[in-house]
């Protein structure tokens, strides 16, 4: 399963990548919205796109909700899980309204996240 993980906290990003790879996920990472969208475009063209995206909501530059909106524009069926350290009911509902699969709060258990990614990918398939 191929996952795109987007978060501006690179230390966290690398740690999550390592843990997911150890559980046989294939993981691409991006530390801002622009490079995430670029990666998505590249894979769309190559025909080997992601099964799911894990997306931080608060990032410098294009913020998570805007990235989500653009991802959904490009690929409406792509499951996107929002993951944030910033609990906000308004942002949660906005994100879900924009078509996010779920809204999770940091810190998140790796097992919980894996279940969520697998579930999201299965639902989309």
């Amino acid at each position, binding site marked *: *399963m191929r996952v795109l993980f987007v978060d501006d*906290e690179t230390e966290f990003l690398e740690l999550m990548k390592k843990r997911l790879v150890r*559980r*046989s996920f294939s993981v691409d990472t991006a530390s801002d919205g622009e490079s995430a969208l670029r990666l998505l475009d590249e894979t769309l063209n190559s025909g080997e796109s992601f099964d799911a995206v894990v997306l931080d909501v*608060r990032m410098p530059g294009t913020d998570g909700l805007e990235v989500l909106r653009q991802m959904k524009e490009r690929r409406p069926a792509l499951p996107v899980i929002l993951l944030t*350290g*910033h*609990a*906000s*009911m*308004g942002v*949660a*509902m906005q994100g*879900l*309204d924009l078509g996010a699969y*779920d*809204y999770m*709060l*940091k*810190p998140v*258990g790796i*097992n*919980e996240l*894996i*279940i969520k990614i*697998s*579930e999201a990918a299965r*639902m989309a398939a």
Partner: protein
Amino acid sequence: MAFWQYLCPWWRKRGASADVGQAEREEALKKAVRQRCAAFRQLLSANKRALEGMSEMEELLCGARLFGMEHVRAASTRVTAAVFQMVREFQALSQGSWPGLPGALERIVADMEVRLARPQDVSPGPLLLPLRELSLADVSLVGGKMASLGEVAVHAGLDVPDGFAVTVAAYERFMAYNDLRGELEHCIRAASTAGLDALFSLSTALQQRVLAAQLPPDLEEAITAAVADMQARAGEDLLLAVRSSAVGEDMPGVSFAGQFRSELNVPPEEVCRVWKEVVACKYALAAMTYRRQHGIPDHAMPMAVGVLAMVRASAGGVAYSRDPVAPGQQGERVVINAVHGLPVGVVDGAQVPHVYVCSHTNAPELLETRQAEGPLPLDEGQARRLARVAVALEEYYNAPQDVEWAIDSTDGRLVILQSRPLQIASSLDLTPHMDSLNQLPVLADGGVPVSRGLVSGTAFVARREADMLAFPEGAILVVERAWPRWAPLLSRAAGLVSESGGVAGHLASVAREYALPAVFSLPGACRLLDSAGAVTLDAHNGRVLSGLPPQGASLTSSAAPPCLMAGSPVYRCLQEVAQFVTPLHLLWPDAPDFTPEHCRSLHDIIRFCHEKAAGLVFRGEGLNGHMGKQLRVGARLQYWVVDMGGGFDGVVAGPEVELRRIASRPMLAFWKGLTAVPWAGPPATDAGGFMSAVFESAMNPALESTAANDMAERNIFIIDAHYMLLQARYGYHFCTIECRAAGEIHENFVSFQFKGGAADLQRRCLRAALLAELLEEQGFRSEVRQDALFAIAEGLDEGETLQKAALLGYVLLHSRQTDMLMQDQNRVEVLRRTWRTDMAALVQDWSQSGNLKY
């Protein structure tokens, strides 16, 4: 409208048309059923998360756990996101036939948002204010410490040092200038604050950010100018004290004793740098822990700072207008702790002070003097004068006071450095326990009780900061010096012993606040108590005894710990928000007000969606051939089954399905585990609990379905040929078991998730930990968070995955109500052995037969 019509709009449009082939119609129908099942499954999953979020909130409300504003926000967000998803899935399932529902949710969330919103915290006002212009009315601008010191000077007419306050407005300016607020809050919210070590690193990171920030130029200029003015008044050799005076620091019930920083003997040119250090100490571990424990949100405590001229002190200390340890026991008395030089040696607990006891009157008499090492720092006249000032301050503030003072060596003036409300320990009558206590050997004797009480526990000697991390919950903390930095451990300790310090120390104040038995100035405590094992701290008589009191006098704590959260700003906010979350107003599905418009809480919305969705799936007219069915093994059981396709062995007509018609391999495996070993029944501690009803529903075939009409309480299986999801809410218990087992190994998994129980939190946590241990032995990976367990096994072949599903059937049945037993070590051991043996037998039996047929 019948569910049938929601189910398949395509069918509704074209159903009667003769040119549609039978096969095509069936295919479309199957697809629609699958989609609706998926929506229902998603709805159930969101339902579970919403209930979890609600129980998280209820747990916070119990006050058994300490929490901050970020916990309130996180719990609110979790439950809101889940309810939003429920509504979304329900809309899909019901084809939007309840248009009022999203509006109802929006209304409730808006009400919650209002309560969660941070007050606008731009503080207009001057950056600095001279001490002699302050009064209590300025508390929100300069903090309690400086406001009351100003009050003492101006209105009570007492001597205070020269100085000024750097106000909250200056603090806000500094934060805004460096854009620090958002950054710090982001760090706090993103960090895990579950353990002390995580809080350690968060604390360091936050302090570093503050220290790295720049003072706005106008603030730096203002401080420099004010210090130059002081220097002009004092002469060349001015040294300064820079003291925290956070807003809320001295509010009733909290003291923040010593949790913030005071820098003494600061040269004038370093005041700006030290001001920043004092601001940064708001994020010191001790202060953060203390704030968390008292439910004070970060933003509710802006930092004002006092800059005061140092007093050249011949003597200093703390005067209490009442005896803080034994109030009223021998008539009211004023207790003075004194040392030579500045009072710092008293308040940081480093020195053993001399003690003067005076009568509590307007013309106090010196009743008693307890001399420590060296000559007495006060004569009788000074002690009486000091006692009179303490009584006058108590009268002025109309509350017992804790007064920090110094005698100026140049002119003998009595200078007041601080006056604040006094924390008084509740008294405890030990007489009934004395006989049994006197039978225990004495390990250490001759200490000063600083917070009375009696407690037993393991002695733990802490010498270094790193020892804090290893400190076991419920142990008796033994330290050499009564440093305030040990304060974060007090919420986890059962008692406290220090070789130095006295009643007047900050750590003693905090111990009294926690109603924690504590003995200070106990000679040789570290050496005597190191590796002493179980001890009894008699903080009434200032001694430590070996072992536990004999049976019958067993004491685990001196009194119920005070609920520190109650009444705090964070707790009040939680209470207000929870009004829109947890109460259930929609009770009767048949009542006319069972509508979205009458939903007043998130719980109402959860209930509404769940009830209506389950109604669509299980009671849908004309649907009997296709979706939810009640499970029957001879008679009807309290389980309902939804087939997503291939879960039954063919078309099952009517509202029930026999177990033999189930073809879902995960469900059959699970069922096999569930019925493999008969359950012994509920534990003796609770014979009539709700779990016995669950037990009967699984095992008693005579039980009729009328017993559980409430959809929210039903146990629901969603299955296909290779998949099973069981969602059950056994009253207190949220529980989900999910399994996929097919040819593709990388897609296979089996997981078990539960939370809660009927016993208290500690026992529920122990049960979760025990189950995690046993499941790990069986190849699961697990995570335990308090009383919630998440266990998963994945990447196994079909047979192994099914075997694990069977194990979970066994575990689910046999772990019921066992949380009740978790306080008894012997019974826990018996359970551990029994479960281990049974699980091993089940595995062996499985590998021999592997038979799924019934």
